[in-house]
């Protein structure tokens, strides 16, 4: 078994209002960062887990996301990286 360090992105699905993203965009605007568009704020989750292979780790993380970490009604998830810990 190997330890893997996995990073997951969970973001509000397109079309769903993202007030946090909007608040950040507005705040950045008022700080003088003018030319921004499309700020989105989601969650970044880091999990360390044991698995035989990187693929097995990925499968495990996918299961975690489907079961708990992401809400299928409003969020999309993506496994950003799976690395040896």
């Amino acid at each position: 078994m190997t330890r893997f360090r996995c990073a997951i992105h969970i973001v509000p699905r397109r079309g769903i209002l993202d007030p946090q993203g909007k608040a950040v965009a507005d705040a950045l605007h008022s700080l003088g960062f003018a030319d921004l568009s499309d700020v989105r704020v989601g969650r970044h989750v880091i999990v360390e887990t044991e698995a035989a292979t990187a693929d097995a780790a990925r499968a495990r993380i996918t299961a975690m996301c489907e079961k708990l970490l992401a809400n299928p009604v409003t969020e999309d998830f993506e496994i950003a990286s799976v690395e040896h810990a």
Partner: protein
Amino acid sequence: MKAGIVRFPGSNCDEDAYHAIADHLGQEAVYLWHKDHDLQNVDLVILPGGFSYGDYLRAGAIARFSPIMREVIAFAKRGGPVLGICNGFQIACEAGLLPGALLRNASLRFVSAPAHLRVESIATRYTSQYHLNQVISIPVAHGDGRYTADADTLARLEGEGQVVFRYVNGDGEATAAANPNGSLRNIAGIVSAEGNVLGMMPHPERALDTTLGSTDGVPLFASILESMLAEVKA
């Protein structure tokens, strides 16, 4: 009638729900511990408000996996009445007992205030004692109350009369200003397709006593009791 109030770690309106049943309605109330599997033969399950598991991942997401929830879900599937208030509504959505999801308030701020609601359906076991389109005042207190669902779900909810309460102004109009959290279509409460699960963000258990302000929650609890009595008779 015997009502069971689930206590999750972080529930904090459990005592209020207990008093609503025991003191205001004069019925039997018991607490159901989240780690148990026994529903103690209750006739009604209340998922109370609060911050189960701190709402740290998403409101209701972790509580939904509590051992007791397996029994609650089975009870609901058998047609048993389940009332989810505030965090209880969020848990019911996460558990798939109700469609949709409750997201962070559009203002990004917690909102604690009396809210006007319009009763959109009196054909439910929770609202039979109200008048249709009656405007009532019930407190809201939540940070994640923005009801969201996809377009098909919304159309179905509206078409089937599953939207039970809507945020309105004092004149009964569902305006943007009257919407405390940015809920789609000003939805404050919905009922399941079978009519046995009600989820609502406002707190009817906080509107039962003249000395505390509104008593507009009384008909809701009275409706529950009435429907139970009718079932017993039938």
